[in-house]
């Protein structure tokens, strides 16, 4: 028998109470929010519970919400997949804007190693307990976390996009 979303929700609520909230079914995937301090426990429960059996960590990624309240400015999103029942699940943990820190899940899934490094690389989110938290895709000399909204996407060293070369200065000045 397929794993029902009501069962998942009930089991998580029974186990973690108020720490898991906001259950919502979006298309064919159940999503919920988990408090940052119980990410590791939640994932362990999802993985090791005999009924839930979410045996595969599909993805770890970050989101930056600069307009949110200070303590909810970053989110880490986890996607998991139950191969036996072919059911997917997604949960978010919101982190503080000044000190975005969350426990690493590398103790549960070794595959989280590079995914957490990538999230650190682009958002500066610290994964506590990660064995080697350093940049993975960008060059080591980079000082910014480029996917944070306050950093410009464009490179400051660009020299051939001067408005004068495109005849834009005059129009801009008169308008």
């Amino acid at each position: 028998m397929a794993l029902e979303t009501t069962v998942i929700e009930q089991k998580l609520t029974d186990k973690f109470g108020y720490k898991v909230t906001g259950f919502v079914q979006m298309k064919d995937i159940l999503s919920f929010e988990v408090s940052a301090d119980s990410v590791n426990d939640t994932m362990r429960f999802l993985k090791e519970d005999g009924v839930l059996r979410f045996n595969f960590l599909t993805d770890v990624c970050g989101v930056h919400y600069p307009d949110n309240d200070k303590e909810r400015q970053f989110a880490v999103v986890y996607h998991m997949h139950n191969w036996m029942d072919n059911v997917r699940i997604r949960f978010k943990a919101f982190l503080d804007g000044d000190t975005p820190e969350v426990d690493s899940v590398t103790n549960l899934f070794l595959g989280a190693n590079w995914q957490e490094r990538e999230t650190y690389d682009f958002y500066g989110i610290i994964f506590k307990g990660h064995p080697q938290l350093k940049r993975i895709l960008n060059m080591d000399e980079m000082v910014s976390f480029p996917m944070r909204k306050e950093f410009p996407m464009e490179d400051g060293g660009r020299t051939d996009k001067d408005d004068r070369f495109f005849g834009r200065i005059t129009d801009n000045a008169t308008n």
Partner: protein
Amino acid sequence: MSDQKDIKIVGAPAGIEGQGFFATKLDEVVGLARANSLWPLPFATSCCGIEFMATMAATYDLARFGSERMSFSPRQADMLLVMGTIAKKMAPILRQVYEQMAEPRWVIAVGACASSGGIFDTYSVLQGIDKVIPVDVYVPGCPPRPEQILDGILTLQDIVKSESVRRRSSPEYQELMASYNIT
């Protein structure tokens, strides 16, 4: 059998010819020899590299212009062709390849990305390879057609032909290298 008339060889440089002798400038002879046997080192990272493969293949045939053999070792190459987007993380590797080449060495930036960063005006992409190594010829296009790449190589051959044999030890050249921190 090919007709003898179809075979073209490069003409002799300007000079004084007489019975049993021919006199010309050393610069021109050296330039002629260098220009017609440029060994290319392709540094291909994306679609411009695919266009370069067409340039090397039978239809366009770069070998007609004296670039017969690809050299995949920078130590045996004269002409570095950089084709494609160079990420900032790649820049030190490109620079190392250039440093391993022996003098005289020339660089062609093929396509918009290698020349200026192209459409990738972003934090992770090098905004033109001339930020890390000196470039002799820029080939525009996104990607350039094989004809344009050939045109770039022919332009470089003109540069090579007219280059003085002393250029590489001139103060101007030393200054150029120093501006890139290459010794």
